[in-house]
């Protein structure tokens, strides 16, 4: 799987502080990868529509990125922006946890 911008929508300038830069690291086309991609896309569309950038990267294609990005577990979604940095691991099936991880919901 090529690292291609799956969804890239320019956020309006006024919402710059709210802009989300997300990177999802997966390892090949495993069921976990597929689930994770589908789940995160859905969550983003529902909660961050218009103000996020999501890159999906396959570590098999770019293994050198694993070290640089401190990836151990896959799938890992890294919230680069806004701070603080967060790592959300797993297949993103627990939507509530994903939202907590994205600081879109208070920890319950």
């Amino acid at each position, binding site marked *: 799987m090529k690292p291609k911008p799956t969804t890239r929508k320019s956020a309006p300038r006024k919402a710059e502080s709210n802009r989300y830069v997300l990177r999802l*690291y997966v390892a090949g086309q495993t069921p976990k990868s597929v689930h994770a991609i589908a789940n995160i896309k859905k969550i983003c569309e529902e909660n961050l529509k218009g103000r996020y950038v999501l890159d999906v990267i396959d*570590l098999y294609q770019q*293994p050198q990125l694993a070290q640089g990005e401190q990836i*151990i577990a896959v799938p890992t979604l890294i919230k680069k922006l806004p701070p603080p940095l*967060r*790592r959300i691991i797993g297949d993103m099936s*627990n939507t509530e*946890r994903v939202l907590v*991880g994205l600081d879109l919901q208070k920890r319950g």
Partner: protein
Amino acid sequence: MPKARTQLPKSPTGIQGLDEITGGGLPKGRPTLVCGGAGCGKTLLAMEFLVRGARQFNEPGVFMAFEETAQDLTQNGASLGFDLKDLIARKKIVVDFVYIERSEIEETGEYDLEGLFIRLGQAIDSIGAKRVVLDTIDSLFAGLPNPLILRAELRRLFRWLKDKGVTAIITSERGEGTLTRQGLEEYVSDCVILLDQRASDLISSRLLRIIKYRGSTHGRNEYPFLIDENGISVLPITSLGLQQAASTQRIPTGIERLDAMLGGAGYYRGSSVLISGTAGTGKSSFAAHFAQAACRRGERALYFTFEESPSQIMRNMRSIGIDLSPWVQKGLLQFEAHRPTFAGLEMHLTTMRKAVTAFKPQVVIVDPLNSFIIGGNETQVKSMLMRLVDFLKMNQITSLYTSLTSDSGALEQTDVAISSVIDTWVLLRAIEIGGERNRGLYILKSRGMAHSNQIREFLLTDHGVELRDVYVGPGSVPSGSARLTQEAKEQAAQAARKQEVERGQLELERKRKALEAQIAAMRVEFEAQETETLKIIAQEQTREAHLTQERVDMGQSRKADRKANRRAHK
């Protein structure tokens, strides 16, 4: 260690002593678990394994650190003399610091550790690594949720490492009552090494034990190990077995008459000699003699001193005419002075081993041995000594130990029950008689030679130790002025005996003379009596004759019968 017939291939660690007890190293191409509590040297062991692999065995390695950053590791390595930076630059080692921060992580469903695999695989391939270290794997459990997934993934990781054919060390924290906190020993079944650190009598020692080593023989004991500026050294307790070659060569003791007592030739080369005695009996002097003799032969002597400084020893020995300083200048004699308390026994042993390895002496002196005995650690001292003796014997080094015995205790019982490892034991003792304190020595034992059974008096003169003549008289061994007195007494007694004999002879003579006089007197008396008696007899006969004549005359005058008279007269 004897090699088993079908040993699995091993990967030498290059760590001093560890390869001896593992019989050649860690299982090649398999993971080894190194577990232990905090600060017992897991990381260092792992790092040394990698560094030595890269430097000595041309096996590049990957260090995956979960606890320390690459910078920390480089610094720590530098303190042990490992130049990690250089090795990294030369593509011999890759250090990958795995950053896991629990607070940054949110778990949202099933995950796996494929990221770690990819990362490790990438690092291994980048330098063609043959060795891998994962330090400390427990950090994963602290950093990531869902231990069930982690366990399954670790199991997969160990299999994967095996498939990769890399020799790996995985370090893990020791758990309560279990080897590792997470029970990882169940997954790594090839080789498990336990590190421990224990303090006794305020001195802590590090210990290493091989819990299991599948498919290989290995030393099963707890082996003390040390970490110093040269890395780790493990000290096998008995790995040497008893296979030292025994030399028949003899080396002089430095004291001529002591040589004579030891079968005329001195100690055996490579033997262990103990000089024990009470305070002030001259133990160090014997040691100095021995050192000097070695240097005179052109051999090297290493003198470990634990109570006096080298200059103090040299000054004191000069006073008995032994000048050691020229030998020090010539580089034949080296002093190693340490306080016994400066480190634990193991540290001492290693320092000594290192000094011996570096200086390569033919003669080693340890003065005194019992400074090591602090509290009730005699067993450890004995085991340390045994290892030291073993080590020195292996290298055909003759060792001389001095030991102080207390005045009150039995002389032959040194504080350390070390007799069994000692080949020649010379006992010095003070002899207190007649207001004097003199020195005597005897050879308690000397394996493999006909040695003297005499107790000999010796003097510390201005030209060293001097044994006095063997005292051949009866009675106990006198010493000092008592000896002189004894000799004078014996001379007097001899004179007295001579006089006695003379007097006896005179008396006899006198008696004989007296007897002879008596006999003479009696004879004179007898002769007088005899003369008298004969005179009387003669007179009587004359008178008888007269009477007879008178009768005849009477008869003639009276005309009596002649016949009858004659018959009656007959």
